[in-house]
């Protein structure tokens, strides 16, 4: 809900911390965000970081918005210039009247008269921590935390609480870091720097949480009953598996104390999905998590699981393209390749969470859908959603009991007296399966990809395969009805509809407000899953023009919508943009306005 607007500059500001990665700045930046969050003010942060362990430039943007906007800000009036290598170009980005905090005892000096630049005595203030000299560089970042706190009014008590959260209550590092924060705060307050940007405590975060999408997705999997994770490390999906490894031991123990889950770090992504397929075949709730390059390696197994009809869940935390270069940059470029992943007419179920809350919800429901539909289910998140902190309503406990799908026990087989694995008595395209270990003599079949008849017996008869493909088509129609339906916001008088998916939601929401203020009301549809269904067709047909906004180069969702409703293809326009960074509202509003 939008909050009442504050006076200009109050609770409406953005900060960019330009630092060197591996210097401990993530601790400083997250402490700032959590402290502001604890002040009840809507806030989020985006880490724009390099593919590197230590020494390369990294930028962290913090956005405070009383109205709850969380898209990457275009205009950032406060610069923390702690990386001398990028400081000149960072300074050039600062709007006139902006504020620049930089280490006064470092090599760099700002050369702009139209901004307020404050040199900070970093080494002197960092010494206040009494940490051993080798740790001084890490606490040095706390100097800008304390200075910023004084500049914009972050409450020190909340900074202390944020550090306690970060260090999980360990008193010593909290005290050491707070000593620097306090010293820097007091020093800065004495300088008498006037700031047009201030924070004022609000009550917008009561009951809210601050969480990243990968952790939320992992928790969703845990409450969705995941019992097997096979994975291979890859940025930006690694923290999803890490979160599973961190929370599962706490949350999932059986009555005898043994784990109700297993985690295997596979030798590659091929094996990771292969293991998940084996476990899903045997009856476990199995998943893997990866990013685009891993998805390509999983192609053959994805196709096999689709045709052998084996449930499993695959998370794709999307990033830019293949190989090295931009693996730490965000994108929504895997939509088409994942939807059709495989060989020979595959169309997969793909869930598209648009918030951290949905990362949790879809983390749960992906397993129900996979077992109901007996098929791999993909969840497409991205680096922005997965690795950045987002404000959210609390994670909601699953409303429905688990759906384990059609599985026949030995008793049911005995009652039926026959077993036809791929029969379709209910017309939904889904046959009942039996699990290995079922003792009934009718239970066993030999699973394979292609070349089976409806009893799952080897067959190369054309009519058997045609019938199988037709049934898989019916199953896809069932999926169309079962997947999360789009969220639609119809605006009175709007002749233009905007369509988006995933993490671009916030940029689109803010862009719609900008466009509305310019006299251009728009409706909105956020697609939450593939396959697309009737609501999507209906939304497109209601609007003279629909602009599909997405973070890729070629307009992949737009293309899928055109395939879905070719009769409306001409009214589906594209704003597709991929530069490695999250979309901004200004970019979206400008591009949409130019199209019309």
């Amino acid at each position, binding site marked *: 809900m939008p909050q009442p607007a504050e006076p200009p500059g109050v609770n409406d500001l953005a900060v960019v911390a330009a630092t060197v990665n591996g210097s401990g700045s993530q601790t400083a930046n997250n402490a700032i965000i959590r402290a502001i969050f604890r002040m009840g003010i809507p806030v989020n942060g985006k880490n724009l970081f390099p593919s590197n362990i230590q020494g390369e430039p990294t930028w962290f943007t913090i956005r405070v918005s009383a109205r709850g906007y969380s898209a990457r800000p275009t205009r950032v009036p406060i610069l923390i210039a702690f990386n001398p290598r990028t400081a000149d170009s960072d300074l050039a980005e600062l709007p006139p009247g902006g504020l620049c905090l930089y280490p006064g005892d470092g090599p760099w000096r700002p050369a702009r008269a139209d901004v307020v630049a404050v040199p900070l005595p970093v080494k002197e203030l960092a010494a206040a921590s009494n940490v051993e000299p080798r740790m001084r560089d890490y606490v040095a970042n706390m100097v800008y935390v304390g200075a910023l706190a004084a500049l914009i009014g972050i409450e020190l008590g909340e900074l202390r609480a944020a550090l306690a*959260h970060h260090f999980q209550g360990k008193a010593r590092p909290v005290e050491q870091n707070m000593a620097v924060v306090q010293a820097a705060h007091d020093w800065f307050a004495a300088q008498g720097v006037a700031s047009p940007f201030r924070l004022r405590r609000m009550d917008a975060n009561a*009951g809210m*949480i*601050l969480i990243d999408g990968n952790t939320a997705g992992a*928790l969703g999997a845990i*409450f*969705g*009953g*995941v*019992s*097997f994770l*096979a994975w291979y490390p890859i940025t930006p999906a690694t923290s999803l598996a890490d979160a599973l490894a961190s*929370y599962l031991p706490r949350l*999932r123990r*059986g*009555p*005898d104390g*043994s*784990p*109700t889950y*297993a985690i*295997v770090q596979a*030798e590659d992504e*091929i*094996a990771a*999905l*292969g*293991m*998940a*397929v*084996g*476990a*899903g*075949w*045997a*009856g*476990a709730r*199995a998943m893997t998590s990866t990013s685009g390059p891993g998805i390509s390696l999983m192609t*053959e*197994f994805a196709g*096999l699981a689709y045709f*052998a009809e084996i449930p499993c869940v695959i998370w794709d935390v999307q990033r830019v393209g293949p190989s090295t270069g931009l693996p730490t940059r965000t994108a929504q470029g895997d939509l088409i390749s994942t939807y059709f992943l495989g060989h020979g007419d595959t169309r997969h179920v793909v869930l598209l969470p648009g918030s951290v809350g949905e990362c949790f919800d879809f983390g749960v429901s992906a397993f129900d859908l996979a077992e109901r539909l007996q098929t791999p289910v993909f969840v497409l998140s991205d680096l922005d959603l997965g690795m950045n902190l987002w404000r959210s309503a*609390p*994670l909601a*406990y699953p409303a429905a009991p*688990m759906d*384990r799908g059609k599985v026949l026990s030995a008793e049911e087989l005995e009652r039926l007296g026959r077993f036809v694995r791929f029969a379709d008595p209910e017309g939904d395209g889904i046959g009942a399966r039996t*699990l*290995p*270990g*079922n*003792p009934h*003599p009718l*239970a*066993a079949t*030999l*699973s*394979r990809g292609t070349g089976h008849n409806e009893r799952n*017996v*080897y067959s190369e008869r054309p009519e058997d395969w045609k019938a199988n493909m037709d049934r898989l088509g019916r199953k896809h129609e069932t999926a169309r009805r079962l997947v999360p339906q789009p969220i639609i916001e119809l605006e009175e008088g709007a002749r233009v509809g905007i369509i988006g998916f995933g993490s671009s939601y916030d940029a689109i929401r803010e862009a719609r407000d900008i466009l509305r203020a310019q006299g251009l009301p728009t409706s909105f549809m956020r697609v939450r899953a593939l396959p697309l269904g009737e609501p999507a067709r209906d939304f497109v047909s209601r609007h003279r023009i629909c602009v599909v906004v997405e973070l890729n180069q070629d307009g992949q969702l737009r293309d899928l919508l055109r395939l879905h409703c070719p009769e409306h293809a001409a009214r589906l326009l594209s704003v597709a943009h991929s530069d490695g960074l999250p979309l901004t509202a200004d970019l979206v509003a400008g591009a949409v306005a130019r199209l019309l």
Partner: protein
Amino acid sequence: MTTTRAPLNALGLSRADYKGAASTLCAGCGHDSVASQIVAAAFELALPPHRVIRMSGIGCSSKSAAYFLGRSHGFNSLHGRMPAVTTGAHVANPTLIPIAVSGDGDTGSIGLGGFKHLLRRNVPMVYIIENNGVYGLTKGQFSATADRGASLKYAGVNQLPPIDLCAEALIVGCGFVARSFAGDARQVRELIKAAFCFHGTAVIDVISPCVTFNNHDESTKSYSYGKAHEEPLHDLTFIPHYEELAVAIEPGEVRDVRLHDGPVIRLRKIGADYDPTDRMAALTLLERARAANEFVTGLLFVDEHRPTLAETLGLGATPLAELPAELLRPSPEALAAVNREFM
């Protein structure tokens, strides 16, 4: 007219209950004789068919998973990827008993990495490689186990040294490594029975001639070569129960390897004494045989001390696949506590 009743095993099942579909492999294929020994071993051990899963990848050998244990679930998966699928199935349900058939292409080329990682994890299973040195389904290319200098009708002469899959298994820590010959049915059967009872991955590399593409007399993977050159390390007998070892034996004549659940593998000396519990001796043997072009068969190495993957993971008595929903989904209170940590 008299009817003869088929013999039944301890479960009251006949041999026919362990058979699979009719083979579509070439007549005389070594893989079919291995399949019939799998049937015999499972029947004689009285394995409950529903507890066994038959796993395979792609290739002639992998097709043969359809030709045995028709009352067992099975998965004919992807080329070289059977190890991954079997690993997942084992973790989901460690009470299942996997038997896998693979080939020299499936295991030695496309699946070599997965093979070694499976062994490293010690997934308890019978892993049979039906090794003929040639790709059959794609009609006659060399595989990575073909000997240097081997010749094929279309592929010509192989210039590259072979990968010895037994040596690969030994190096990565596999606890049961055997080599056999499809023409030596009894040894194959006894090894399969022992492998079924082994606590860990049991690899049996069976030289299994391809009658269509690689059975000429000069081929080291042919029936004639195998029959002429096979040198068994020992005469091998699987004894299901230790109590049956009442017969007096001369000291030094046999070695008994006792498996953890009680069965014994009796190795009767043929030539020089061989200690199959010495890994370096096994590697030395393979290297000596390679240098001298000898075809040594038998149980090369056995060591049961490593934990299985399920044990390494500390899994409980109820398989993950059989856990009820209440154990899979934590309580609302647990989620409320998690939420509070992010406030």
